[in-house]
């Protein structure tokens, strides 16, 4: 079920908003609209759906409108047009009172790039701020604050002033403040961008750990693709106010929607993200242990143009591999039971579909067989060939490889 649904949301800054709106409908881009009307388009007709409990990352460079989009979610910025549903309630229909009382206070909280903490208050009083505004009594809210401070690993700092803490610790306070009111949705605006790389990586890991426990719906904004790929269950990439592509990290890496996204993902270390599921051949040709003899196996191999095939039992479970040389030998000797010449499970490796490509590569080192991909019932669902794994790791398409060969490769 989708928790948040955004439909045709646009934000236009300037005086001639009406004209700009018409131009958006005609599908004009940011620069054209700026030239014609003098209006700046913050968000251009964005639509997306965010599922409950998901970490949804909006990625874009500065000026892409990602922070503007985020601020529409709690109406720090009022969208010019469009609809924004949270649990089937159009947030843009709420009056000021309901927006404040029911929505900002209870539904969603926000973590800011530069923390946005109150410098005149202690850590615990900052964390309790959201509850204080709701009118929760002091004892309850301070108790709650101490609990949350523990969760984010700041125990012992409760009564320090925020100015005495390092950036990473201040952002933990920011996170604790956002969690203290127990919201359903967390908005994180470049929450880790102001931190040192090492601290940033730490915080990312901890956010993921925390998410395991709290299962919030998180909308995370970043300009850092690696961060997006690491944190996001799904990612939307924005450019000039438009959402260019939405998808899982793997979808975005393996199937970029256009040249912009492609250029973006080119230099990413794909090995950890792309999985066996993407690079395998589905429903591969196979040899059935009881029915097929060496002759049938050889025929299937020549049909498929391969030199080895996986073997399955009657229930479709993967049990091993056979090679064409062995089959030929068996046929010559007149043997019938391929079991004798089969590489059994102990000798070959089977992987699950979610194994990252980076982990597949080493498996090819000590075998010249393909890899079988099996599901949780041990049923064969695919085969991974080493050439596709290499292709995936270097991130080049066949065409590009041919180009490289043409330009500089040695032609044997």
């Amino acid at each position: 079920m989708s928790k948040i649904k955004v439909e045709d949301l646009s934000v236009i800054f300037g005086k001639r908003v009406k004209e700009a709106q018409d131009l958006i409908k005609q599908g004009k881009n940011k620069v054209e609209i700026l030239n014609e009307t003098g209006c700046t388009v913050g968000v251009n007709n964005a639509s997306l759906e965010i599922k409950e409990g998901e970490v949804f990352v909006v990625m874009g460079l500065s000026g892409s409108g990602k922070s503007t989009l985020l601020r529409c979610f709690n109406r720090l910025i009022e969208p010019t047009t469009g609809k924004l549903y949270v649990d089937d309630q159009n947030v843009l229909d709420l009056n000021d009172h309901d927006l404040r009382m029911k929505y900002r206070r209870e539904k969603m909280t926000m973590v800011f790039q530069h923390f946005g903490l109150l410098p005149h208050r202690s850590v615990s009083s900052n964390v309790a701020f959201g509850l204080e505004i709701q009118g929760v009594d002091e004892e309850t809210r301070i108790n709650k604050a101490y609990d949350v401070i523990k969760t984010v690993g700041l125990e012992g700092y409760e009564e320090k002033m925020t100015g005495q803490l390092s950036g990473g610790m201040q952002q933990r306070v920011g996170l604790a403040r956002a969690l203290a009111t127990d919201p359903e949705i967390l908005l994180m605006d470049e929450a880790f961008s102001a931190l040192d790389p090492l601290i940033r990586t730490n915080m990312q890991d901890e956010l993921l750990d925390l998410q395991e426990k709290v299962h919030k719906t998180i909308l995370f904004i970043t300009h850092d693709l690696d961060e997006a790929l690491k944190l996001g269950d799904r990612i939307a990439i924005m450019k000039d106010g438009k959402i260019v592509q939405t998808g899982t990290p793997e979808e975005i890496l393996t199937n970029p929607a256009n040249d912009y996204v492609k250029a973006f993902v080119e230099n990413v270390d794909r090995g950890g993200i792309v999985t066996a599921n993407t690079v395998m051949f589905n429903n591969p040709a196979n040899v059935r242990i009881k029915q097929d003899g060496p002759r049938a196996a050889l025929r299937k191999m020549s049909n498929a143009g391969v030199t080895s095939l996986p073997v399955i039992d009657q229930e479709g479970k993967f049990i091993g591999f056979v090679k064409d040389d062995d089959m030929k030998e068996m046929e010559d000797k007149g043997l019938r039971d391929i079991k004798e010449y089969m590489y059994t499970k102990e000798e070959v490796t089977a992987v699950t579909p979610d194994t990252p490509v980076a982990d597949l590569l080493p498996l090819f080192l000590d075998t010249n067989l393909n890899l079988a991909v099996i599901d949780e019932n041990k049923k064969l669902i695919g085969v991974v060939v080493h050439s596709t794994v290499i292709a995936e790791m270097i991130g080049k398409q066949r065409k590009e490889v041919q180009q490289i060969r043409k330009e500089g490769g040695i032609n044997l």
Partner: protein
Amino acid sequence: MTIDIDIPLGNWVESGVEWLSANASGFFDGITVGVDAMVVTLQNILLFPHPYVTILILAVIAYLMTSKGHKVLSKGAWKAGGGMFIFTIVGLLLLELMGYWEETMNSIALILVSALIALVIGIPLGVYASRHDRAEQAIRPILDFMQTLPPFVYLIPAIIFFSVGNVPGVIATIVFALPPAVRLTNLGIRNVQKDVVEASIAFGCTKRQLLYKVQIPLAKPTILAGVNQVIMLALSMVVIASMVGAGGLGQAVYKGILKADMALGFEAGVGIVILAIFLDRVTQSLGISRKQVSDEE
């Protein structure tokens, strides 16, 4: 050919003032009574104890204010506040022994009442201006006008509305001392970090919560700098205010000028300087919170 144009701006203002004094005299009388009562009460309170007692109390106040952030009787506290403690005792004792005690207390009363009224009007106005750009644009030229118009000029309508005495002096002082209260409150609130304000709104603050829990606490140092300025400007008006009959040290200086009495003018002048140092140092430390200083130690 010459065009003979004579815009009688002065006459227009004059008839306006006359109309007001004729038609709104009840209103102005009310203000006169109220302000006069405040000044007299404060004067009486200050003059009630023996001068030495008052001097000691003021010296202790000076000590506590200037040694803020230190433990009350620690070495650090004496280092920070001891100077002002001794200065207050010596300075005020000098004034008492020169025979200017009553004038000094009257001046303090006039300054405090003017400053208080100026702050009560100015700070809310500054808050309002900080939230409404239009209001800020409208208020700014008025403040410029109030600060640049020579104070002598608005002494005239002050006499017409409030007759002669302490009250027109206080009113003229308020007009002169009000602008920094408005300006610095406005500035302080506008300069509160944008992301802190944004965060507060995102957490569901009402406008009132935002003001009292976030904006005013964070703008406090700037607002209190405004308070200090208001008091110092009020002090700088004591001599001018005495021209419309306000009492105190200012009147002694004014008499010195009229009679070309160097001795009288100098003594009262020194008194104003002592008062200025006392008020400045005490109100300057308003903006320092106890925590800030102890952290630096």
